[in-house]
């Protein structure tokens, strides 16, 4: 399964991971288009989130390889993979509940060397950069609130802001529209397109087909732990295998 990619981004080769007797990812070879908005869709239990977790180092694969921009990142620690330029959100939105909204972003600032680690976390420039992201998400007025006091939708935006604060090249979003009202879905979709316009690659796992079809350039369809189809939204919409496996028509 190859695709015409302009540059090498995130790729997996014969990636396999099983839990007990269940093979969550089954020798999956996928390559996502660098610089584009990619979607990963498929029925529940088709291995999408497991693929996310293996790719970001949260789970080790049984076999196979993951490469990012030509570099082998298979089985590397999650923080190493994050520092290689991959950022991710979680399926059930995860923020640091007892930290302020601003601290939730400042955590993502990368310190290097002893002096930087011991320097104050309240660096003026970084605070301004964090405020910029909060403004873009529309939650800058909540800067001093503890994250646990935010509504679900606000926490989703906060998580995205935190991921962006780490300045990744590729952003993996696990169900960004999950449990979110239509107005906010539109806003998140708009942000994704905007950031993509500024050079960020996206890989989105999402069940909301309206969102997927409207913002994605390239769609990979997963079923039983492996890709069964890929292509632009128009082609996917009419692919009989996809209709059978997922869209259920």
């Amino acid at each position: 399964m190859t695709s015409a990619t302009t540059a090498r981004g995130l790729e997996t080769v014969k990636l396999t991971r099983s839990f007990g007797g269940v093979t969550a990812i089954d020798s999956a070879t996928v390559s996502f288009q660098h610089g584009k908005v990619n979607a990963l869709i498929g029925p529940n239990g088709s291995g999408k989130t497991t693929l996310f977790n293996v790719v970001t180092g949260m789970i080790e694969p049984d076999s196979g390889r993951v490469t990012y921009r030509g570099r082998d990142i298979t089985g590397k620690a999650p923080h190493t993979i994050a520092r290689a330029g991959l950022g991710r959100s979680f399926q059930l939105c995860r923020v640091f509940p007892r930290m302020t909204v601003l601290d939730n972003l400042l955590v993502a600032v990368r310190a290097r060397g002893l002096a930087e680690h011991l320097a104050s976390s309240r660096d003026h420039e970084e605070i301004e950069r964090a405020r910029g992201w909060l403004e873009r998400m529309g939650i800058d007025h909540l800067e001093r609130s503890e994250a646990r006091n935010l509504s679900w939708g606000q926490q989703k935006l906060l998580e995205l802001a935190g991921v962006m604060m780490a300045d990744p090249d590729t952003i993996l979003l696990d169900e960004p529209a999950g449990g979110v009202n239509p107005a906010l879905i539109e806003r998140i979709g708009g942000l994704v397109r905007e950031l993509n316009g500024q050079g960020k690659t996206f890989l989105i796992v999402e069940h909301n087909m309206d969102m997927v079809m409207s913002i994605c350039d390239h769609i990979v369809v997963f079923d039983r732990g492996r890709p069964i189809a890929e292509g632009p939204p128009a082609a996917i919409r009419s692919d009989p295998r996809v209709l059978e496996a997922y869209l259920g028509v």
Partner: protein
Amino acid sequence: MLRLAALALGAGLVLSFPALAPNPYMVTVGIGILNYAVLATAWNFVGGFTGYISLGHGGLAGLGAYATGLLVTAAGLPSFAALLAGAVMVAALAVPIGFAALRVRGASFVIVSIALVLILLLVFQSWDSFTGGSRGLAVPRPFPGMPRAEHHTTFFFLFAGLLAAVLLVWWLIDRSHFGLGLKAIREDEDKSESLGIPTFAFKLVAFVVSAAFTALGGGLYALWFGDLDPVFQFSVLTGSNIVLMALLGGVRHLFGPLLGALVVGAGLEYFKLEYGDTPLHLVATGLLLGVVVMFMPDGVIPALSNLYDRLFAPATASIREVSAADLAAKGDEPTEVRR
């Protein structure tokens, strides 16, 4: 400015205590409390920042005490050189200990930390040709010939100095990038990893710093008290008292463990004085731990500041109301949908 004044006042009170104390016994009580404050604050590098609850810190203090004592008696080092060298040795030993223990989280970590104390107890009891075993280890006083009262006063100031140092380092880490990363581990370790924080290295560094200060506390105790017994040095009770103190005061606050040490340390002394050898002090500390966990899970300091807010600043609206109104004004309603 107000904070600085309060800090100066607090420091003044501590430093004038030996002069104000009615008798040398009260000074020894003060030393006991300062010692506990050092240990609880040192514990808080791990427990407070990363949320890893160690019941094994009593063992690290014991290691510091024995390292100091043995470096004086067996290696012939001067007392305070032995204290520093002992702390360095314990810090070095904390690397492999932390490397093994910090791989597990939550209750498993607690159990591993208890195991550490029990293993150390066995080793130090059985290896009596080196450690003196159950007969104990006599540590020579660093100031021979000094009158007893003066000895206590001197050590009171030494402990106060050590407490100042450990508080200063905790404060520096608290406001640093490193500290923010540690607190992120406490909140959500996997999420921290995904943002690029090398969580294992961070935890290990915090553990080693914590162990070094704990060892200094134990070592200074050895030089002051002059007699070590494995049963008291490697006791899970010491570790659990430390945890109680930190939780009572509030682990998120610089002075939380210090406040807890003041309350619990004074309480323990009172029970020992009034009820002698009865286990009543254990009952009291157990009850106190229950009360803290049930009614003040964040400790006294946050509980008091919440109370203050409720009494004197009742007009603040909840965040959600404000944000909802604010967002509605902007034209997009925040969602309340929960999954």
